[in-house]
């Protein structure tokens, strides 16, 4: 809560083109030089089985929903900064789908916040993911363990993520 809510808005970007996760992490780390701990997660289109991945979203709702997750994470963990970039549209194997990076004074907060934000992004934000392989197009449903992982952050008493 060391920065005003406006920062949470700017911390979230939905992009239609390929982005450079490590370039973004480097910029994020430089912007939070007073933090000792930077944790990050990058999710990519897996090579092999899939030719392409298409991600659609509900634009009017997506950004606001994710900004809410950032607000939640800042209330729950001691964070100096958050960066979330989520790609939409059609993307190729190896390309990044999502980046979450968190800066904090101590590693546990940064790591747990990345974990929490990824759980939220998987099942609680209005994205829909489709695999394309040859002629086949297959909508991806969230896995039961993803739903369970996100639910565990709903109980305010739960400190699982900080254990």
């Amino acid at each position: 809560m060391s920065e005003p809510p406006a920062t949470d808005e700017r911390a979230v970007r939905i992009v239609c083109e390929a982005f450079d996760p490590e370039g973004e992490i480097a910029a994020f780390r430089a912007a939070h030089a007073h933090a000792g701990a930077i944790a990050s997660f990058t999710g990519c289109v897996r090579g092999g089985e899939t030719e392409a991945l298409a991600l659609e979203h509900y634009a009017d709702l997506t950004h606001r929903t994710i900004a809410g997750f950032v607000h939640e994470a800042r209330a729950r963990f001691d964070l100096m900064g958050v960066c979330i970039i989520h790609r939409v549209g059609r993307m190729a194997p190896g390309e990044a789908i999502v980046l979450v990076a968190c800066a904090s004074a101590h590693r546990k907060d940064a790591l747990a916040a990345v974990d929490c934000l990824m759980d939220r992004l998987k099942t609680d934000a209005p994205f829909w993911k489709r695999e394309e392989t040859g002629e086949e197009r297959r909508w991806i449903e969230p896995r039961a363990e993803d739903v369970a992982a996100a639910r565990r952050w709903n109980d305010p008493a739960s400190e699982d993520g900080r254990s």
Partner: protein
Amino acid sequence: MARVMFFGRLRDIAQCSERPVPFDGALSLDAFRRLVASGDDDLARALQAESTRVAVNATIAPRSVDLVIHPGDEVAFMPPFSGG
């Protein structure tokens, strides 16, 4: 009239990403869903599925609320999210 939006596999079932749905007065969500499906059984089933979430004017409605849809509303039907 309401603007109705379909996402993910609901779009494939509805065969469009959005559709204007004309009506007067206020409708319960149940009545509105029947009007939207208008005899398409597959779409009716998909809209009523437990896992389908509804957003009215870009705000996700809690499942527990008895929704009422008014002319001018933007109503989105959304299958389970799969981001990240």
